């Protein structure tokens, strides 16, 4: 008979339980514990489906004072405990929180107060920033360094020489009181001050960790500091001079110094992003009865008059009433150079005034495109899901493991007969040297830097997990209309008598149809009256005393006018791809024909060629004809309606990773179905939901910038994680084997953290993009902006 669980032969009689026979007690106990499920090879957990939260209002807050992922958890828990808040997510790397709440039960203005717990300072997006606490951290740092210097000098004078055997105890006899009585007490007093004043942030972090039940780096440090301090204090009161105050102060000070620099570097890495986000949520100056009033974006009503000064972003869409200015619209339209705008022109919310100042009236919707965009970005920023969970997972394993290891190592040394002081040191070194921070920082910081680097290139990253997706693209599916082409119709060719084009232009000027617009641009010499639209077929109007018809074949069939065979044949013969033929006729006869077609982007061929170097390029179009694009690509799927595009993408995914490039509205399902979706055109909420990357404007070659940024960011995440692994794999064994003393452990740990921070804050995408982006316009001296401005 074989064991029910492991299949090995059983003894006779077999070991039995529940009617099954087992080979050993181990197998039987496994069965007893897990029951019959274990025999099936898997245990099915009754998964309770979380109810989807009811819809509510969304608010974004800036939360200062977060410094680790346990802080994120505390912020989220505090928010969720509050009645009326449905859900919350936060990111310490970008200091943001996103709250979904019920506006009937709670007011948005209450949120900052609710979240300002445990030393966090929360404020609503757009609210004025409080004074940064940089001065306090600097003061802390200076106190720490100077007092530590005093403690260390005392050690140098009275303790180290004797420990190292350079000086005999007898030689200290003349200064006995000073060396053995006063100095230790002074050291004790100073250490107490250093630990509890300078080290306060460490203990705060440790408490936050304990409050949310997550062990973090601060817990390790706090245990190490308190152990060294407590042991030494105890020894001092017992009259022994086996003191390790030097270790305690060194940990506190080294960590404080490290964190100070880390804070600065982190602020720089995320500052740019913060600046960009805050640029979109400005306080406005509204002119009312001759006076200026400060308003937030939400309070602006349509037709309010808003004054915008040089260097400021335009808060909402509107019409210029007064003033002339050079406006940078790069983030909205992709247009790299500022454009000149004057009275009567419309301006887009989110563009920046590079030079001049404007007074505008708010548009009817009083809502800016950029506001939508900002929301999209904030929600992407405040939910770096992948990064968070990894940091959590690592801290969850790592910190308890290190604590356990330190206890084992110290206990082991003790058992081995090492003096308690030295055993303590080995344990402390183990605690301190391990650096879960590097894991925690590796992804979120780099991702934030990647997102902000992309923004500098005018590329909006809407889901941060693209940095974790597969680096290689096997298939690139490209939409035709609106992507390879501009979506605007242009006249390709005209046939027949010259008057035909002039009359047609006159008629079509009255119509809003895209083809009509293209034809209308042909000529401006005539004007038409008495327009009659034949929907889907064309239009008829009076030009002078002639009744002119412009439209498709079917229009002339209705009218009963004849189309000369020769004209129809030559127009069809010259029809480039899917061009549309409009006939022009008067006096019962067709006199000319105009062929219009979708205008291709000038750079499409170069972009597709570059893409083909690394992937199979598939053209995906709803039109029946690939109209000239088929020669440039590897494969054509023509006549695919928008809803079927997603199915094609799913089929392509069987062959490899698929990149979909399309416009944000029609192609949304396909963008979402692809491994990587890049949307062109207006950054709408729909596009942002569906695509991973949104590129406003029409510059196709920016996808390569996007690839660059993604690849660099991914590489940097790997470097950081690799470093964190390497560091911990080297440092921990060294500490465990007792080669590392706590002082060097603290130095190594801080250096490791700093390295990761530095690597993350290095500029991604080294070359400065040509486009003058918002951040560039804001940071660059205005004088330079003037050079770009058109007169």
């Amino acid at each position, binding site marked *: 008979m074989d064991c029910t669980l492991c299949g*090995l032969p059983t003894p006779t009689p077999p070991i039995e339980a529940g009617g099954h026979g087992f080979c*050993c007690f181990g197998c039987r106990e496994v069965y007893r514990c897990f029951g019959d499920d274990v025999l099936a*090879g898997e245990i099915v957990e009754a998964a309770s489906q979380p109810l989807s939260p009811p819809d509510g209002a969304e608010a974004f807050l800036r939360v200062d004072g977060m410094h680790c992922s346990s802080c994120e958890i505390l912020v989220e828990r505090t928010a969720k405990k509050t009645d009326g808040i449905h859900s919350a997510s936060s990111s310490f790397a970008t200091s943001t929180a996103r709250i979904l709440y019920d506006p009937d039960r709670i007011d948005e203005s209450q949120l900052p107060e609710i979240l300002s717990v445990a030393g966090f300072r929360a404020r609503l997006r757009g609210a004025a920033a409080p004074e940064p606490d940089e001065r306090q951290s600097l003061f802390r740092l200076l106190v720490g360094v100077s007092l530590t210097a005093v403690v260390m000098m005392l050690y140098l004078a009275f*303790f180290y020489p004797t420990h190292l055997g350079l000086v005999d105890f007898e030689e200290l006899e003349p200064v006995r009181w000073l060396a053995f009585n006063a100095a230790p007490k002074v050291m004790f007093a100073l250490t107490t001050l250093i630990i509890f004043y300078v080290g306060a942030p460490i203990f705060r972090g440790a408490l936050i960790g304990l409050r949310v039940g997550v062990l973090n780096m601060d817990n390790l440090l706090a245990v190490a500091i308190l152990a060294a301090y407590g042991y030494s204090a105890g020894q001092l009161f017992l009259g022994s001079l086996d003191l390790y105050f030097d270790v305690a102060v060194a940990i506190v000070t080294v960590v404080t110094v490290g964190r100070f620099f880390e804070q600065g570097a982190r602020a720089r890495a995320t500052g740019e992003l913060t600046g960009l986000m805050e640029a979109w949520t400005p306080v406005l100056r509204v002119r009312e009865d001759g006076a200026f009033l400060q308003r937030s974006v939400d309070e602006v009503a349509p037709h309010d008059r808003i004054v915008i000064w040089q260097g400021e972003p335009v808060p909402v869409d509107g019409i210029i009433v007064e003033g002339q200015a050079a406006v940078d619209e790069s983030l909205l339209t992709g247009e790299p150079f500022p454009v000149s705008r004057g009275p009567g022109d419309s301006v887009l919310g989110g563009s920046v005034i590079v030079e001049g100042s404007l007074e505008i009236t708010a548009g009817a919707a009083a809502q800016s495109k950029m506001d939508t965009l900002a929301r999209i970005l904030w929600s992407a920023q405040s939910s770096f899901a992948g990064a968070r969970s990894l940091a959590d997972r690592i801290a969850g394993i790592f910190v308890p493991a290190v604590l356990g290891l330190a206890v084992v190592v110290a206990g082991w040394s003790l058992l081995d007969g*090492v*003096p308690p002081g030295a055993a303590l040191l080995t344990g402390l070194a183990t605690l301190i040297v391990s650096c879960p921070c590097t894991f925690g920082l590796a992804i979120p910081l780099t991702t934030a830097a990647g997102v902000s680097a992309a923004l500098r290139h005018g590329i909006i990253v809407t889901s941060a997990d693209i940095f974790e997706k597969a680096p290689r693209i096997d298939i690139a599916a490209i939409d035709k209309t609106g992507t390879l082409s501009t979506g605007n119709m242009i006249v390709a060719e005209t046939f027949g008598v010259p008057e035909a084009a002039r009359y047609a232009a006159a008629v079509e000027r009255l119509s809003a149809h895209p083809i009509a617009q293209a034809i209308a641009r042909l000529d401006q010499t005539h004007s038409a009256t008495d327009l009659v639209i034949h929907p889907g077929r064309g239009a008829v109007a009076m030009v002078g005393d002639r009744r002119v018809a412009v439209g498709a074949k079917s229009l002339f069939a209705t009218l009963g006018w004849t189309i000369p065979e020769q004209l129809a044949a030559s127009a069809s013969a010259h029809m480039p791809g899917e061009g549309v033929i409009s006939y022009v006729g008067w006096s019962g006869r067709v006199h000319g024909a105009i062929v219009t077609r979708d205008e291709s982007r000038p750079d499409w061929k170069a972009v597709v060629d570059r893409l083909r170097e690394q992937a199979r390029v598939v053209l995906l179009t709803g039109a029946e004809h690939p109209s000239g694009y088929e020669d440039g690509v590897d494969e054509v799927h023509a006549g695919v309606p928008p809803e079927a595009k997603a199915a094609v993408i799913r089929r392509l995914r069987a062959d490899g990773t698929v990149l979909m490039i399309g416009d944000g509205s029609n192609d949304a399902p396909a963008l979402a179905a692809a491994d990587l979706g890049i949307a062109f055109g207006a950054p709408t909420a729909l596009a942002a939901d569906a695509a991973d990357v949104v590129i406003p404007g029409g510059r196709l070659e920016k996808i390569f910038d996007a690839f660059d940024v993604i690849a660099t960011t991914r590489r940097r995440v790997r470097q950081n994680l690799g470093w964190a692994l390497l560091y911990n794999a080297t440092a921990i064994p060294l500490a465990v084997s007792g080669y590392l003393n706590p002082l060097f452990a603290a130095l190594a740990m801080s250096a490791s953290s700093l390295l990761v921070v530095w690597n993350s804050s290095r500029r991604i995408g080294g070359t400065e993009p040509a486009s003058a982006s918002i951040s560039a316009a804001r940071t660059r001296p205005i004088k330079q902006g003037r050079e770009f401005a058109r007169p």
Partner: protein
Amino acid sequence: MELTFYTALMIGLLGSTHCIGMCGGIVGALNAGLPRSGQSLLSQVAHHFTYNAGRILSYVFAGAIAGLVGALATKFSLDTAVPFGRLIAGLIMIALGLYLAGLWHAVTAIEKAGLHIWRRIQPLGQRFLPANTPARAFGLGLVWGWLPCGLVYSALALSLVSASPRQGAVIMLGFGLGTLPMLFAMGGVAGQLVKLARHPAMRRLVGAGIVMFGVYTCVTAFSVHGHNHAHVDHNGLGQDMSETHTKSN
């Protein structure tokens, strides 16, 4: 590192062909504890890693205790205790080898003794179920390290006769590391391994290997006298520190 360390490592490596069938169940339980959405390779590895870390930590702890008991026993007895202990350890290993080969089930008697400890520890394991976080997996590993198991006991016998807490812990660390490769094999590989492990010829081979280690341990039991003293130098690592940092009065 010394020979008993590698002996323990080999016991773990060879013997874990047995575990793969049995512990596969626990591993399955671990996988089931994972959140549905996040069954990424990374989280699986994290769970297995922490589970095994917990398990090995328990072994190391048990090894240290066994070593301590051995040390005390040596202190209060004649020096002859060590060689005899080694002989017994070797015999246990031979019994284990025969058991793995499916020939003689005497080891189950020792396992039965281990049941008493297990009965007390096992209820703690319920706390860590479902093992849906790495921390819980770690706890589960800590508890399940005490599962009655002939393999563990034969390795512990080696720890006992090392007569040093440190050496005992090191031996159990070696054993634990030895069991890792098999338990970390996942997916299709695991299925293949289970098949292979159940194959009678494979079982005989593994059993024979462990019997050979047992015979070797028995034969050398009396010849490697004085061997124990060599470890004192090893312990010097910790003492380098103590010399520079011990503050004398």
